[in-house]
């Protein structure tokens, strides 16, 4: 993985139709950073990732990679979609899905070559998928499916990885493998942005947290931002905090309708 450029968002707003999902986002993310994007359902976490890719129905402001517009450097970004966005009945194998990450390198009309097949094989091995390379993607477990898409992002050889809910629906072993991989990539200079519902693990693995709810509420290292006032400002009454001993166990509750009062 290459050294990432500096990723900067300047007054980025984005949305669908007349709806504004995200307003006036200003962020500067240095290379070699893991950023956890945190916020309640519908807060604009996915929209933020898609706005960086310029894929929302509309967006304005500018997204810059080392000061240059992202539109000219799409090859430096890789995107892993939310599980719900994938058609798991599609007649395609794990290896073929990973190969799609090479399509831009291969170019129009041409067929995958030896180097492409080798890149795919390496990524499959790295994510421990070599045994199920020939399986149709719908046959795989949730963790394997997530790893297939991560492998696809790897073979793109991008330096900025955008992951939408990568830990949702995966088993413990996958989570450990993925966290290890993300750290390796980060140490090699890559920038990783991942949206998540799991506040604890986001705080544990991220260098920076980005709290989002229609706008960026806070951005900074977990030690400075993972605090009750910021959590409250982000989640309002939707956050359930259970104090057990000295540890604050937090849980973002969209569907639970948890109404425990936030700490002051």
């Amino acid at each position, binding site marked *: 993985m290459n050294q990432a450029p500096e990723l900067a968002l300047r007054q980025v707003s984005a949305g669908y*139709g007349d709806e504004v999902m995200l307003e006036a986002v200003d962020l500067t993310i240095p290379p070699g950073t893991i950023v956890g994007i945190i916020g309640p*359902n519908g807060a604009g976490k996915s929209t933020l990732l*898609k706005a960086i*890719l310029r*894929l929302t*129905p509309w967006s304005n402001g500018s997204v810059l990679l080392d000061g240059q517009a992202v539109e000219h450097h*799409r*090859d430096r*970004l890789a*995107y892993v*979609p939310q599980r719900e*966005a*994938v*058609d798991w009945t*599609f*007649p*395609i*194998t794990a290896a*073929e*899905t990973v190969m*799609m*990450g090479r*399509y*831009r390198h*291969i170019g*129009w*009309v041409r067929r995958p070559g030896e180097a492409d097949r080798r890149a795919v094989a390496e990524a499959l091995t790295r994510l421990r998928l070599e045994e199920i390379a020939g399986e*149709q993607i719908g046959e795989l*477990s*949730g*963790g394997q499916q997530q790893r297939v898409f991560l492998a*696809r992002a790897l073979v793109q050889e991008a330096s900025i990885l955008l992951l939408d809910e990568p830990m*949702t*629906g*995966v*088993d413990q072993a996958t989570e450990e493998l993925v966290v290890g991989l993300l750290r390796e990539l980060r140490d090699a200079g890559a920038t990783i942005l991942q949206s998540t*519902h799991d506040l604890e693990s986001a705080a544990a693995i991220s260098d920076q947290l980005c709290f989002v709810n229609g706008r960026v509420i806070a951005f900074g290292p977990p030690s400075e931002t993972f605090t009750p006032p910021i959590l409250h400002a982000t989640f309002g009454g939707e956050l359930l905090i259970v104090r057990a001993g000295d540890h604050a166990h937090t849980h*973002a509750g*969209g*569907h*639970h309708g948890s109404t425990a009062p936030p700490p002051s």
Partner: protein
Amino acid sequence: MDWLTEPLRDVGAVRALMAVVVMGATCGAIGAYVIVRRLAFIGDAVSHGVLPGVVIASLIGTSILIGAAAAGLVTAIGIAVVARSGRIREDAAIGVLFTGAFALGVVLIGTGADADEQLESLLVGELHDVTAANVVLGVITSVSALAILALLHKELLLTSFDRTLAAAQGYPVFALDALLLVLLAMTIVISIQAVGIILVVAMLVTPSATARLLVDRFVPMLILGSVIGALVGVIGFYLAFHLEAASGGTIVLVATAVFGLAFVLSPTHGVLAHRRLRHARHDVVAPAVDRRAGHEHPVE
């Protein structure tokens, strides 16, 4: 072997058989995209939208195929544009467009001579007067469509499977969508003579759906769908001749029967296989299945 050669005594019948094979093979190939992109309704819409073009062409005395192609393209592009505007839901937009075009065709045809007969042959197919020019045009269209599918395989597959990745990488997603709709429209045009406007959608969907039941990968599905399309065309052609039945209806019935067989007997996706697998899973790996099911419905 009389039953094999008898239907081919006159040259018109040989041309009809060639038209059927070309139609079946092309529909089966395009059909792979119709299945994975869920274009069945759009296919039906384009085939109905062809009617006014055919009628106008015959009224002003130009080639029916050219009229059909023009109307099919207008309908396909109209659908792509209206669907993209996002003002009303796509299925409603399609419903409005193609029924309107079809109604225009019905009204226009009512003004010509022997209107009923003409309408019937357009609706359910008419293999008796396939001209040599029809066959040549069909072959040219088919070969170009298949060549484009082969050349742009990666790009069309990617936009079908993951539009977000395609767009994120800067592929012209809308142009590729439109191209596929154009290929779909051309395939429909060369198929109408054999099976008619109403039944074309069956040839676009049924052979490929049958192939999907038998294989789990896209390229094998496309090739198998194409082979099944051509085969059911040939079988239907002979059956229709010997039973003195309508060719379009017979071909589609054969396709439906083959689908039914695959639906029950497919080693991986058939009803029987599923029953067997369910039993096997229940005995051996029930805990694993349960654990996985638990993960598939995460609490957000």
